Every structure is written in structure tokens, then in C-alpha cells.
């Protein structure tokens, strides 16, 4: 039995087309902001795969973002590899880290799982500070300007160009969205949700739930690392702040606001949060307090986030 979600597919296509068109109407600073939103929403989409679809709440996803960031950034900085190769190395690095951490962390459950992922992430963060001579520590490393362009089909793609950055970010976002659509709307996605809904029952139907969770964890970490690699290479900077706890919490917040367990929720959540912080920080220095209150309100009255609430009340296909 094959099931399709044509309405969601259509919405995804329209979303990508609208995003592409926005670069022609938005002022440059908003196009740059949208580039950042696209990359961070890839991070949140990775996080959503684990937290939203599989029901595993990680507090350490900055570790995977940083794994991609450092694997890609350091290989360019020290070995001078081209950006496409560095990007692939970033993805491979994030895959390896998430697989190893997943094998260990998934031996725990619930609160213990949260604590273990947090501890692993903190260990990773401290390592970036400990090996400052390699990573640059807090100060970070800036990629040399001549290393920030690459050739593609006879063209030179310059990562200091806003247009190139936006379109590349949109391309990667679209690819990740397509991959996640295929996963979440197919048999594997059903199993992720089954584990979230009732893990013992999933096991009694004949499924190895540890293997399912490990798959979700690895996919989630790899996509988060993809965002990290893209971020580092695109903006030419790698630093330990990306491995910090706040980065993990931001992925959680983007997902919570947009709607855990909805494909487009992380994009919406990232956009809302980023623009809110941008606007409020221009009005008051106490903007984090305002955002904190808003988050409490959203979580009290809309615990399933914006798209999650819409899905539950009106559009069941929005998942």
C-alpha cells in the first residue's frame, strides 16, 4: 500500500518557488537574513526529524552542527580543499559523529537521554576550546577570501556574493526538504512516528526500535551537520560558539514554534524567531525577555506549534 501526500508536496513546491522569488523583491539585508534563515531551518529540520517525528528530545544538537562546521571549515583552512569537497567532508563528519553518539546515547531513555546528549555536546564544546591552537577557540577562524569561491560547470561561484549565497542556500534547503519529504511521508517516517507514539507496541509488531531510533538519530545529526558545514563555508567563519548549548536550544525553539512533527514547521519557526529577534533587538535591549514571554504563551496555548496547531484543527495533511 503506497500512500501519497500530494497536498503537502504541492505546498513544498510553492514554498520553494516563493522563496526563490523573494530575492527579487527583498532589499539586500533581508535577502541576507533569509539566507541565514534557510541554513538555520535546515538545522531545525534535522532536529525536527528526531524530536518532532521520533519523539526523542536531544539537548545536544549543536554538537552535530559543529561537527559539520569544523569538518568542512578546518579541511578548507588547513588543507585548502575546495568548497564542494569540504562540504561533503562536513556531511561525512557529522554522519560519523551522530552515528557514534547515537550508538551510545540511545542506550538511555527520556530524561537520561536528554542529559547524555547534553553532556556529549558540552564535551564537544569544551574540546573546541581545549584545542584552541587548531580550532581558534572562542575567537574562531576566518576562512581566507581566496578559498571562498569554487568552479561549477565553468562558472565561478563566489561565496562572498549575496546572490550566490542565497541561491546555494536555497538549493541545499530544497534538496534537504525533498529528502525529508521522502522520509517522513514514506514507510520510514511512519516507523519514526510509531516509535514516538508507542515504542513497545512498535516492537511487538516486529520492529527493532533501537535500529529505528538510531536511523532517525543519524539522519537528524547528519542534516544538522549539513547546515553547519554550509554555514561555515558560506559565511567563512568557524567558532566554538556554534558548539555551545545556546545553539542546541535555538534548534529546539525553532522546532517548537513552527510545529514539531510537521515538515515545514522548522522553516516557519526559524523565520518567525529570527525576524522577531531582529525587530525586537532594534526596539529594546530586553528583547530576550519579550521573546521568553512569547515562547511561554505559545507553549501554553499552542503546544504543538503554529503548523502543528493548524494540522490538528484544520489541515490533517500538514505533517
Amino acid at each position, binding site marked *: 500500500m503506497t500512500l501519497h501526500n500530494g497536498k503537502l508536496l504541492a505546498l513544498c513546491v510553492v514554498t520553494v518557488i516563493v522563496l526563490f522569488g523573494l530575492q527579487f523583491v527583498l532589499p539586500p539585508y533581508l535577502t541576507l537574513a533569509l539566507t541565514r534563515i534557510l541554513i538555520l531551518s535546515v538545522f531545525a529540520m534535522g532536529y525536527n526529524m528526531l524530536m518532532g517525528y521520533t519523539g526523542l528530545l536531544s539537548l545536544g544538537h549543536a554538537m552535530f552542527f559543529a561537527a559539520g562546521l569544523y569538518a568542512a571549515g578546518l579541511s578548507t583552512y588547513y588543507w585548502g580543499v575546495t568548497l564542494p569537497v569540504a562540504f561533503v567532508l562536513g556531511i561525512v563528519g557529522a554522519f560519523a559523529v551522530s552515528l557514534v553518539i547515537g550508538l551510545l546515547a540511545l542506550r538511555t531513555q527520556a530524561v537520561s537521554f536528554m542529559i547524555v546528549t547534553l553532556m556529549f555536546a558540552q564535551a564537544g564544546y569544551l574540546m573546541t576550546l581545549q584545542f584552541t591552537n587548531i580550532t581558534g577557540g572562542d575567537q574562531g577562524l576566518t576562512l581566507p577570501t581566496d578559498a571562498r569561491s569554487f568552479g561549477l560547470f565553468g562558472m565561478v561561484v563566489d561565496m562572498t556574493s549575496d546572490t550566490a549565497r542565497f541561491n546555494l542556500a536555497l538549493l541545499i534547503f530544497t534538496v534537504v526538504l525533498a529528502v525529508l519529504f521522502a522520509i517522513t511521508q514514506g514507510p520510514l517516517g511512519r516507523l519514526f*512516528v*510509531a516509535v514516538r507514539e508507542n515504542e513497545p507496541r*512498535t*516492537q511487538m509488531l*516486529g520492529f*527493532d526500535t533501537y535500529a529505528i531510533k538510531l536511523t532517525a538519530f543519524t539522519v537528524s545529526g547528519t542534516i544538522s551537520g549539513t547546515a553547519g558545514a554550509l554555514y561555515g563555508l558560506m559565511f567563512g567563519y568557524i567558532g566554538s560558539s556554534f558548539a555551545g548549548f545556546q545553539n542546541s536550544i535555538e534548534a529546539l525553539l525553532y522546532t517548537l514554534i513552527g510545529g514539531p512533527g510537521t515538515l515545514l514547521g522548522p522553516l516557519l519557526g526559524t523565520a518567525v524567531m529570527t525576524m522577531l529577534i531582529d525587530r525586537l533587538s532594534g526596539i529594546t535591549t530586553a528583547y530576550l525577555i519579550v521573546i521568553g514571554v512569547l515562547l511561554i504563551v505559545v507553549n501554553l496555548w499552542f503546544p504543538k506549534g503554529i503548523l502543528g496547531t493548524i494540522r490538528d484543527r484544520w489541515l*490533517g495533511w500538514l505533517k
Partner: protein
Amino acid sequence: MSEMRVEGYDAFYGRSQALRDFSITVKGGEVLCLMGRNGAGKTTALKAIMGTVRPAAGRLWLDGEELTGLPASEIPRRGIGYVPQGRRLFSELTVAENLEIGLMTRHSGQESLEYALGLFPVLRERMKQRSGTLSGGEQTMLSMARALCVNPSVLMLDEPTEGLMPSAIASIREAVVKLRDDGVAILLVEQRVDAVLPIADRVAFMNHGEIKARFDIEEVRSDKSLLHQYVGVGA
């Protein structure tokens, strides 16, 4: 004809023994009913067979193949289906998605789905509905249909009629009879005597984790004092 044989299962919750030397054989085309008071060990027996409660001793065979010690996720793949008490659906998924997960277990084809939907036609009209919004009877039917999508040769049902309306109970009873007639071995845990007497072939009474007595259904039908003796109710 399929046959499931359990021999000498012991199971513990901590230091408390919940199952003592539990042995049964159920064959294709028959309904064996496990009866007993609350806490007698009926549900534990089913969970031990499924491997979610690890037995401390005992052996399990299905159609001559030993399944003892296999991981819990492997037991259904060998052909033992389980419908737990309280239905346990994936409530956020639709009816169709719940059934799809059942089909994935043994890569069952459309035939298994059609067979399950043939037993519970009401589910056809609910395919796109979220399973958490179904009525209690429909949820039980979906739970059974999902277990049937695994294409089991043995089906274990844990109090499937609990809390249901008479019309839903009748539908489930009809389905059990059809399954039995089609050669499936049924192990039914039930407290309701009126639900058991018309469809069971044999009855095993449990108490304190042990099977205390076994009867053919005709013996129970003809001597109602047995019910009073072992489960404390009259028919």
C-alpha cells in the same frame, strides 16, 4: 496446520513470580481461552510469549521451529500476532497508516490488507481518519486488523471486548470465528464468560501465574459450577 507450543515458562517481576511452569499448545483452527481473575498472570503469559517480558525458564515453538530466546521484535516476524489490552494504536497516524505499518512487518501484500478489511469493513470508510478519533470498537477492530496485516498463523487477543458496546462485541466475535475457521490458531484472554462460551474450543483457567485446570468447552458449558470455582462468576 500451524501449532504454537509453550513449555514450562517462568517469569518474574523483580522478585515476584508472575508465571509458574506455564505450558499450553494451541493449534490452527481452534480458539483456546485463558481465563482467570485479575492478576492471575494471563497478560503476563502473552507478554512472555511475545518476549516483552523475558521468561526466566521455558521454551517456545511455532510449527516445530524453536523461537525460545529470540528478541521481541523477531517473534511477530515468525508469525505470532498480538492484540494487546487497551488497543495501543498509533493515535496520531491514520487508519491506513496504522495498517501500512502492519503490512511492513513481513512485507505482506494487498491480499493481507483485503483480508483484514473484509473482516472489518467499517475500517474501509475510515482509512484517512486519525486512529485516535475512532470509537472504542473501531479502535479494537483496527488493532486486530493491523495484527492480521502481519499475516500471523497464531493470533493472541488480550480482552478484546473490554468496555465495548454489544454491537462491537458481536463484530469482533464474528471475526474471531472467521479467523478460526480459516485455520488461524487463536489464544484469547477474556474475562467475559458470555464472550467466551460461544466461540472457545478449549478453556484454561489460571490463578497465581499457574494453569490450574483445562477443559473442553463442552465440559464448561455443561457444568457452570466450573466457572464459579475458577473465576468466581456464573454464566
